[in-house]
């Protein structure tokens, strides 16, 4: 067993060298890795969308989408999320300019818009459960709560992350590490907006169609 290891071949240096200096090292390994995480998250949402596509019309004699969805509220929610996307974009522009205070202000606005979105969504969930249209009522409502709730959970953790980064930037300033983290959160936040496009189109708008 032990005679396999560490026999230096003739003509080779005895110390191990990996020639790392000549390898092409990816410049943004973290950003690429985070992108891969987002893509796997995308598959999670694809499965939940597939579940909703299969079960979305199984009302089990309960309320239908046309009866319970309030499109004006959904439109307001969509506006909140879209606005939060553009304000995060403004924060990124300020970050490039090293404008720390302006960036923190834009981040705070982004977080507030995200909180408004969550508030409206939770209010809708609470209303549905109060009128007896909770997740256990029908297959349609189970898949609806799972899909929309998972998105809401992502937004919640996005806000937690955003507040964390605001504290970190406030303490350490716009150092390279914080910029990298802010760029990861930027991808996360915009990705959530892309998922929401699917939710409002596929679940809400198509759900109220006869």
């Amino acid at each position, binding site marked *: 067993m032990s005679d396999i290891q560490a026999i230096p071949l003739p003509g080779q240096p005895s110390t191990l060298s990996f020639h790392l200096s000549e390898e092409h090292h990816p410049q943004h390994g973290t950003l690429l890795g985070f992108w891969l995480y987002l893509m796997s998250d995308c598959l999670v949402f694809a499965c939940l969308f*597939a579940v909703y596509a299969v079960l979305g019309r199984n009302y089990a004699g309960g309320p239908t989408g046309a009866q319970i969805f309030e499109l004006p509220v959904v439109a307001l929610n969509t506006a909140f999320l879209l606005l939060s*996307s553009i304000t995060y974009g403004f924060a990124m522009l300020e970050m490039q300019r090293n404008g720390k205070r302006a960036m923190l202000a834009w981040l705070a606005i982004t977080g507030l818009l995200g909180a408004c979105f969550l508030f409206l969504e939770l209010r809708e969930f609470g209303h549905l459960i109060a009128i007896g249209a909770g997740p256990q009522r029908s297959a349609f409502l189970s898949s609806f709560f799972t899909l929309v709730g998972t998105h809401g959970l992502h937004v919640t953790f996005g806000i937690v992350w955003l507040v964390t980064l605001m504290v970190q930037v406030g303490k350490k300033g716009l150092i390279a590490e914080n910029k990298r983290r802010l760029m990861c959160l930027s991808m996360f936040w915009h990705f959530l907006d892309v998922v929401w496009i699917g939710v409002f189109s596929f679940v809400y708008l198509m759900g109220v169609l006869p």
Partner: protein
Amino acid sequence: MSAHTEHHDDGHGHDDGASHSTLKGYMTGFVLAAILTAIPFWLVMTGQFEKSSTTAAVVLGLAAVQMIVHMIYFLHMDAKSQGGWNMLALIFTLVMVVITLSGSIWVMYHLDHNMMPSMMDVKSLP
């Protein structure tokens, strides 16, 4: 102007990946996204089309276009970012998403169709 930008990128060795995001890009994306959001809501809330299937097709088509707009202007996707690995991962994911969605809908539709109560002999069930 663009030559200056390229020189800037080369000189700093890509020290931040979002160096090409501009106010103009974000505003273009935002205006396009707002229009592409408003149209489907208007179509559904005012009932422009008689047939639901027409509305559904238009809503889904606009959603796909809006997703592409977000990818380009907000997520800064292009074929060159991360040496093409971003795009490769995205294409792979899209293939998986299409297989998952279309496969589930297709299979489950036929399952529903073939398992209608009228087609089953109730007496033969245990």
